[in-house]
């Protein structure tokens, strides 16, 4: 069984004026390839910090984190940037598109940082934009399309470098329920294609799309329900 993510005895604490403040306390988690996980929990539970560490944007104070076989806790800045570029696709609550660039350029941006040439960049970007249903908007700017469409662009951008893992932080937080449902369907489809998806959300109906729900409270995993049996995952892959 391929393990995409393996976290053991993970701690994270911040230095504050009042002394060290622990955000994550001994988190252990294994996520397998093709899994569909929803991370839930109230504000301050540590789920965002955990996401940042999973996304190689932050490093743990102690403990181990293996992503796709890489020992992330002990990698340097450039190696982390490459992991983010090639292995992870980010989807944010606020879409986080570059307002000045066309949708095509937005989607192609990760390929710039992996050093692809222009022809390949545009080809792949068109391919994924078409996949998320925005074939007619290649040259539009983000402010010319709706929020749901913007989130599709962000998903296209996350997909363009064929990542093993998609990390979505409250992907439907800024969307109405109908659009949210459409976006979630898109995630469901991607997962069916074998891409590992991890969502952070605090809405139960969104979390229900995932096969597995993990609940955080006070820096600890308090609940981990697996819907899909490992055998089923294998079947899908």
């Amino acid at each position: 069984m391929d393990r995409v993510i393996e976290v053991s005895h993970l701690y994270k604490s911040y230095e504050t004026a009042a002394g060290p403040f622990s955000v994550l306390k001994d988190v252990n988690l294994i996520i397998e390839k093709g899994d569909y996980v929803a991370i839930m929990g109230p504000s301050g539970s540590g789920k965002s910090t955990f996401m940042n560490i999973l996304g190689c944007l932050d490093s743990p104070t102690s403990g181990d984190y293996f992503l796709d076989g890489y020992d992330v806790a002990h990698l340097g800045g450039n190696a982390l940037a490459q992991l983010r570029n090639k292995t992870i696709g980010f989807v944010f609550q606020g879409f986080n598109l570059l307002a000045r660039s066309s949708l095509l350029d937005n989607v192609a941006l990760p390929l710039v940082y992996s050093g692809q040439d222009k022809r390949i960049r545009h080809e792949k970007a068109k391919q994924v934009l078409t996949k998320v249903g925005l074939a007619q908007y290649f040259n539009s700017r983000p402010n010319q399309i709706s929020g749901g469409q913007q989130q599709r662009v962000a998903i296209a951008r996350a997909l363009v470098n064929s990542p093993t893992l998609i990390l979505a932080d409250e992907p439907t937080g800024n969307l109405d329920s109908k659009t949210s449902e459409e976006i979630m369907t898109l995630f469901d489809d991607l997962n069916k294609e074998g891409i590992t998806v991890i969502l952070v959300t605090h809405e139960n109906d969104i979390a229900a799309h995932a096969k597995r729900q993990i609940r955080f409270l006070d820096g600890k995993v308090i609940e981990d329900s697996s819907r899909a049996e490992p055998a089923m995952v294998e079947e899908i892959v």
Partner: protein
Amino acid sequence: MFAAMLGEAWHAMGANRLRTFLTMLGMMIGVGAVVLMMAIGEGAQQSIKRSISSMGSNLFIVLSGPPNAGAARSATGNAATLNVRDADAISELDVVSSVAPVSMGNAQIIYSGNNWNTSIIGTTPSYFQVRDWSISEGYIFSDSDIRSATRVALIGKTVVENLFGDEIDPVGKTIRIKQSPFVIVGVLDRKGQSLDGRDQDDTIIVPLTTAQRKLFGNQVPGSVRQILVQAESDKVMTQAEEGINNLLRQRHNVREGSDNDFSVRNLTAIANTAAETTRTMSLLLGAIASISLLVGGIGIMNIMLVSVTERTREIGIRMAIGARERDILLQFLLEALMISIVGCLIGVLIGIGGAMFVKTFFGTDAVVSTQSISLAFIVAASVGVFFGFYPARKAAKLNPIEALRYQ
């Protein structure tokens, strides 16, 4: 990837056009000023070089009268202490190649109804060799003209223009100098301005003896106001100067410890000093102008810092999707560089335009050299990199999580 970043830098520049333009303005003015100032300096240097080469090379001028005659100073060249025999003696010196005694003054000249006041130079044929001057028409008078004091004249271009106009060929015509008729035997080549700004073409050259006997009526027969001496090479200049001094002191019976009754000036040295001064001046002008480049650079740094702050979120996004520190660094550095280089390009155009303006409206020579343009580019690029580096590094060192959270 570099091409993609260049494209992005270009877009970023276009995103806030007014701000980019204002930032560039500093560079534009700075580079324009440097190019213009260097053009003016270069123009001055070239005109000095022309004057020097028009003067003749390895040249001394021996003037009659003491260099500083006590409290009451008469202008040098007034007292009649030099004569033709001094010139002959100087020409015997080893290191001297040519000598030309000169007697000069101003006179009114007339040709049919036209009048012109010009300077008359009375000299020998060797004058043309010493001054490295040739004629464009006719012939130079000869030593036999000196012996028999014939009334022949060589005429400068300015005099031709004022006395004859464009239509008439002056050679063979007779003009009147101080009422005496002179036949024009040749026209002098154009020389241009001398170092002190005189028009060297506004002159008439006649045989020395003719000038002495028929035009200026010397009190002392054979006396001349100055003797031009050409040394054999630039290496023997000091030796020649010493030789002339010793010879003339001896001939004029100047006692040990007394002042000379003549003065020797090394014209080539004076000219070189003038050239050196102009060079220093133009360097100084360039240096002052380049201070504005520095100010322009600070402007770029300022705006880049604002830009980094404004685009914190963008930087966060780029980092999240895989930009390395050096990608971000390069991106902002390229932007700063592009602003300064484009500003520099426009500045060069402004400088060239300014030089043309100065040339047409002030008549000052202003020559834009490729050297000054390449210098401006190098300086602009260094300013871009130097002042762009700090903001770019600040951007590259941002924490991606905080950058993403930035509103």
